[in-house]
């Protein structure tokens, strides 16, 4: 029973960081209707920025701010300089460009910082608070959970309560009609990318300390898990991203704990299939579109 409790808590803690990154995936999907495969690499770039700032100033929080700021700049820059010019003849075009960006970003980071791990600090202790002999969540885990919670609330508010959220969604779904209605589609797209990259930066700051260390490829597997999480949740839903993230975290933890670590990728696949075969649009899918 202790073991179950332990695995559950640990799975939730790990799931929270997947959720954080899944939120960034959802955000860009809602803002631009693309799955941004470069999101992981972009997040890594911002964490490197934070690393440099923290190295120079000695302050974690300055680095944290730098990550968010560089996320905004990087996201906006990529939209302005690259994505804007990708022709919309097929949704695959942007997927391929994003993959190209992954290679480019990782190469640049590798050249700048070297292809080796760099340590990243955590602002709070990662030592679990022990209750009855079982190490439960650490302060850092609570920080992550809190940040994810705050983020999902803010995003939900943005999308449901503000007109910017409404404009972002309509711009993503129907760019031309939105422009006719006075929506600055190009501006919102830039904003969406900037915001998503900033959320990705935040997620990166939360995720990287739980990984092996900072490396140009650190987020590769995190992206896969988080994308899975976002898909499980239903790509359109911030709440779904969080639920999906926690579900993926739990499944990985249980599988590793009870079945062996080898099985974890298969368990993820099983989770994905189990959810999607019952709900092809994810757990929090919207209504199925009327076909005719």
């Amino acid at each position, binding site marked *: 029973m202790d073991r179950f409790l332990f695995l559950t808590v640990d799975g939730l803690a790990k799931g929270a960081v997947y959720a954080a990154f899944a939120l960034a995936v959802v955000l860009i999907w809602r803002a631009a209707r693309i799955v941004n495969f470069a999101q992981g690499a972009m997040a890594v770039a911002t964490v490197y920025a934070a690393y440099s700032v923290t190295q120079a100033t000695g302050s974690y929080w300055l680095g944290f701010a730098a990550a968010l700021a560089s996320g905004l700049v990087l996201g906006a820059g990529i939209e302005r300089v690259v994505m804007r010019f990708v022709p919309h003849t097929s949704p695959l075009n942007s997927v391929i460009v994003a993959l190209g960006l992954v290679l480019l970003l990782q190469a640049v980071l590798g050249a700048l910082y070297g292809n080796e791990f760099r340590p990243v600090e955590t602002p709070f202790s990662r030592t679990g608070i022990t209750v009855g002999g079982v190490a439960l969540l650490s302060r850092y885990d609570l920080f992550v959970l809190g940040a994810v919670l705050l983020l999902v609330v803010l995003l939900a508010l943005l999308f449901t309560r503000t007109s910017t959220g409404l404009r972002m969604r*309509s711009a993503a779904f129907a760019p031309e009609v939105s422009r006719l209605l006075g*929506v600055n589609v190009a501006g919102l797209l830039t904003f969406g990318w900037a915001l998503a990259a900033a959320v990705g930066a935040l997620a990166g700051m939360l995720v990287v300390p739980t990984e092996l260390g900072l490396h140009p490829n650190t987020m590769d597997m995190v992206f896969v898990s988080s994308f899975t999480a976002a898909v499980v949740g239903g790509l359109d839903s911030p709440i779904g991203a969080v639920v999906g993230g926690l579900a993926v975290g739990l499944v990985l933890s249980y599988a590793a704990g009870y079945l062996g670590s080898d099985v974890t990728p298969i368990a993820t696949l099983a989770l994905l299939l189990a959810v999607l075969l019952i709900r092809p649009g994810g757990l929090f899918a919207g*209504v199925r579109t009327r076909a005719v």
Partner: protein
Amino acid sequence: MTLLQVAGLVVGYGAAPVLHEVDLTVPPATIVTVLGANGAGKTTLLRTLSGLLRPIGGTIRFDGGSLAGVPVERVVRLGLAHVPEGRGVVAELTVEENLRLGGVWQADRRDARLAQDEVYELFPALAARRRHAGHQLSGGERQMLALGRALVARPRLLLLDEPSLGLAPRITAQIMALLRRLCDETGLAVLLVEQNVRSALSVADQGVVLSLGRVVAAADAAQLRDDAGLRHAYLGF
């Protein structure tokens, strides 16, 4: 006095122009209907006016200022609303959200809300489906929504591309009557593109006939309606 003045407008998709030297004026509080066969260039005209297409030549002046180079999203702020062909409802958003979108650029939130309520009054079918997604609506319901959404913007000039498409005769008649009323009461001007010639002419003040991208006739609507010769020559009935 004119609200919209188009002179020598030339528009094309590739090299060959689709519209040739089109001249057109729309005074305030007037309904001008643009008629013409399929492919005459009616939609092209409206898309150019709202800035979706860039003209090759000619001028467009709205309310005294030139529209050249004004981005699409700013045109609506000048008071020109375009209901595009094929409904243009954002299928993934709810009816309510679609309507909110109509007034999203307005600073005056209260007035935008008021305008929404007016639309629900105009189209009770929409009021019953506030929370339904756009794609759940029937074809005609979408048409009503698109029109209603444009009205929320409280435009001074309304560009309508075949509003009667897919609408029941009764609704069509209602809409035409509504346009007339808005014109008379609020000074709204309408540029109405229609295939449904009869109902268009029944409310319009003036008619313009396009053929292969050229204006071949421009006259009072009553004249087009009543002059069998003109009708046969340009409208085929």
